């Protein structure tokens, strides 16, 4: 589904060119849940922009679905640490936004609106926001806004979901709740996910594979498969095998931070 081959990216910084990524090679299969972890400032977010085609690599090739990426991929769903909902739109209208833009929904948005609204309500129920469609974003708590943001990134049934630390600003309990929401939606719809995070437990709990990045300029220094049986329960986080992996990853990142 996604492949980066020997990708480097340099951008013009204030004091000359900055190398954000160097020689990054990574591949994510269709329907796979991949997590990217690493120290802060290692170019994890740059990776997201490369995959979605928002920036072009300086060298190397980024390919999605076998075709090299030359511009915005026009189908990826994205969610960030900030929910970024539009305050003048209700929750439902916020979630409908991608359908106003992406084809083929865009062309028939007016005539099929009722159908799409029903779809939004369905999705809202999945993430535990049933009945909140008519509210405005600022009437919701941070966790609820993030749920709505997740709905917005999924409404057009993207084959690829890019998440950039989506749960980082939430409290621990809400975060775990949303892990389960994401787990369930993913298990139901089976899209490809790239989750950028610095929360190792989050990465290990949710992902099939965890990629570890080095400090800037970022490279993938290790790829680790996580093979706990699915569906996973939150209890798995307290398994010895689970904590061992987290501990191991923790040590690796501590090392690259020093290096």
């Amino acid at each position, binding site marked *: 589904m996604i492949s980066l081959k020997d990708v480097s990216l340099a951008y013009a910084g204030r004091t000359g060119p900055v190398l954000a990524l160097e020689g990054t090679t990574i591949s994510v299969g269709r329907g796979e849940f991949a997590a990217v972890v690493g120290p802060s400032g290692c170019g994890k977010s740059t990776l997201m922009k490369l995959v979605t085609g*928002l920036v072009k690599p300086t060298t190397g090739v980024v390919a999605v679905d076998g075709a090299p990426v030359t511009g915005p991929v*026009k189908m990826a769903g994205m969610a960030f640490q900030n929910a970024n909902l539009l305050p003048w739109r209700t929750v439902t209208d916020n979630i409908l936004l991608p359908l106003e833009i*992406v084809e083929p929904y865009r062309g028939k948005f007016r005539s099929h609106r009722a159908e799409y609204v029903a779809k939004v309500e369905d999705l809202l129920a999945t993430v535990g926001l049933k009945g909140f469609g008519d509210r*405005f974003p*600022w009437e919701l708590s941070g966790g609820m806004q993030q749920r709505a943001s997740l709905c917005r990134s999924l409404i057009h049934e993207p084959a690829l979901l890019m998440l950039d630390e989506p749960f980082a600003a939430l409290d621990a309990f809400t975060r775990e709740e949303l892990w389960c929401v994401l787990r369930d939606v993913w298990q139901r719809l089976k899209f490809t996910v790239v989750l950028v995070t610095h929360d190792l437990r989050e990465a290990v709990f949710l992902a099939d594979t965890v990629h570890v990045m080095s400090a800037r300029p970022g490279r993938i220094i290790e790829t680790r498969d996580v093979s706990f049986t699915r569906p996973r329960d939150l209890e798995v986080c307290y398994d010895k095998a689970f904590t061992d992996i987290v501990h191991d990853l923790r040590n690796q990142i501590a090392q690259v931070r020093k290096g």
Partner: protein
Amino acid sequence: MNSSKIESLAPWIFVIALFVIWELVCKLFGVSTITLPAPSDIWAAILRYWAPLLRNSFVTLWTTLAGFALAVAFGLFLGLVVGWSRTIYRGLYPVMIGFNSIPKVAVVPILVLWFGIGEIPAILTAFLISFFPIVVNVATGLATIEPELEDVLRALGASKLDVMRKVGIPRAMPYFFGSLKVAITLAFVGTVVSETIAANAGIGFLMAQAGSNFQMPLVFAGLIALAVEGILMYAATAWLEQRMTGWAFRAQGSAAA
């Protein structure tokens, strides 16, 4: 009387107190009417000259509104253009700053040479002085779109026009309506300045005439008329702002709660 009732009456109490003190000072110190007329003298002038006051107020009102309307149309257009493209923004910025720093009083004689004495220089002065804050505000609203939100939309294949229509323009609306309050006040200043220098109607003209005839109560009656008009126009735009972009205020209110 409870405190909220006192608070709602406070504006009236202060206005009345101001006039009472004014009246007392004039009477107690025997201030000459030529220097500073007392409110009672001004009131008498208003009653005596209500017809010309009303007629000239109307002229000032419509020239201000005409200049303001031009400023809104042009300011909105230029603001969208400037907010759209960084290159245009960089190119136009020095020109706009330079233009805005010219005191518009200096432009009035040129306008008079071009268009003659009358309403047109007043309308144009009002326009020239008031479009700038609209441009700056609209452009700011567009330029401060959250980059992540733009990424979300662009990753869906949204064009620049899509991003502007769905996010940029609605987002700029509170800035736009906010700037109208500033713009209408400035437009009013522009009109009156121009009328004072070169016009044959309007409150500015009336005051200049009354001044040269030493009719100070009438000059002050003109000031009162200006104050009333200014307050009304400001209130109208403030009301419009509340009505059109209530979500922006509610959002702040809920964040504070």
